[in-house]
């Protein structure tokens, strides 16, 4: 688009979208730009933004948008109320398991090992029960299952954050426009 840039009586940079919008008698300069925002007044000169300035601005916007998209993605599959509920389950579950004589550090280790090894949810739950609930106590079984659920959901958040970090690095290190496109592709936690 063509914009007609000038300084008004307040020394504010103005960009008219049409010639007819320019006040009479004003001295102006025309630029072909993508947006009026691409024209700046720096050190007494009206000019278009440099490629470096455009790149830096686009990077800032892209990082803000990535942050927003990442947050939305996490909340889509792991809503705020569920996160708060999980924190409560974690505290209560570990308190009960400790009361029942289990070593919660070992429980955490086993859950982490199962998730990181890529075990299916069913397999991981079976392993947990075989290891810590050989007497099939229903309350212990319930809390082991809840802690495993929390583990899978937190792993989902961890993986999304990893992907966020990787994408943000790509955006920040870009040396020219257009910036790389991206899709957050971490599968949601597969919990029955």
């Amino acid at each position, binding site marked *: *688009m063509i*914009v007609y840039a000038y300084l*008004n*009586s*307040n020394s*504010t*940079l*103005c*960009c*008219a*979208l*049409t010639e*007819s*919008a*320019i006040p009479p008698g004003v001295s102006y300069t025309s630029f072909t730009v993508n*947006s*009026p*925002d691409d024209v*700046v*007044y720096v050190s007494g000169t009206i000019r278009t933004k440099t490629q470096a300035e455009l790149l830096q601005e686009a990077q800032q*916007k892209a990082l803000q*948008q990535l942050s*927003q*998209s990442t*947050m*939305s*993605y996490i*909340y*889509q599959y792991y*809503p*705020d*109320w569920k996160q708060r509920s999980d924190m409560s389950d974690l505290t209560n579950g570990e308190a009960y398991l400790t009361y029942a004589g289990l070593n919660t550090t070992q429980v955490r280790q086993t859950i982490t090992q199962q998730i990181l090894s890529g075990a299916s949810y069913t397999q991981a739950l079976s392993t947990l029960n075989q290891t810590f609930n050989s007497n099939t106590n229903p309350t212990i079984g319930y809390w082991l299952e809840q802690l495993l659920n929390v583990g899978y959901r937190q792993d989902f958040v961890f993986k999304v954050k990893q992907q966020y970090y990787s994408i943000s690095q790509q955006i920040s290190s870009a040396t020219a426009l257009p910036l790389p496109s991206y899709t957050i592709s971490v599968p949601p936690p597969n919990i029955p």
Partner: protein
Amino acid sequence: MSLSYTVSPFHPTNPYPNQVTTELDLANQNFTTLAQAFVNADPTSLTVVNSVSVGGYTVSSTPQPNTLLPLNANAQFPYSVLPPGIANGYANPINLTSATADYSLSVGQVAYISFTNATSVPLNIATTNGTYYEMNLTLSNSFNTGAVGAPIYLIQNNTTYSNAFLFVEGYFIVPGNTPAMYSATYSAFRISWAITSANIYITNFTTNKNIISFYNETGYNGMDISIASCVWEDTTTSWTSLGTITFPQASSGFVLVRRLA
């Protein structure tokens, strides 16, 4: 036709020469004159000529000065006979879609502007100090995904003024059920974001130029609802043209602008 009427043409007690012929002629002339009082000079029409006027005003199905107009088939008067401020309300907006020059709305008038795959939509509406408007902006773009997340602007006077606009919004976004506040400085009125349906109230006093808006923001995996205000931090520049709406992506839809004061 010359009409005449003789009161009591028959004089049976006062004989005179050719009386029968004379008085019957007078009686016939009376009948002719009386017949002229009916539509088509036909008493069987049962419609008296002067009965189609009231107080001297005649009736016409086509609007004309100093005539009576019947209601139409919907028992309503046509828009064309209503005063402009009423006629050009929401039911019958002024279409400025193809306007090439600014139009000055009267109080109560509504302008309608439609657009297809546009990133820039000139409103072509003149404005002056002391006026107030309501604007409705609605888009047909897909609300779901893929939108460019950037502001929708109203570029007042078809001109941006660098960093002269203070914007504040409160919004509630899903997913996440997150309330938040945001503020920024822009070079034009920010009226919404991405894909939207927006209601915007526009105040134009040279000393206090601002908009208040509420709108949704869609076009990504979620949406939010926002209440916002944007103030032009300049108390001397006249706002003479409502300006141009710009979109961050090709957009389709329509705008209604109603002048309230």
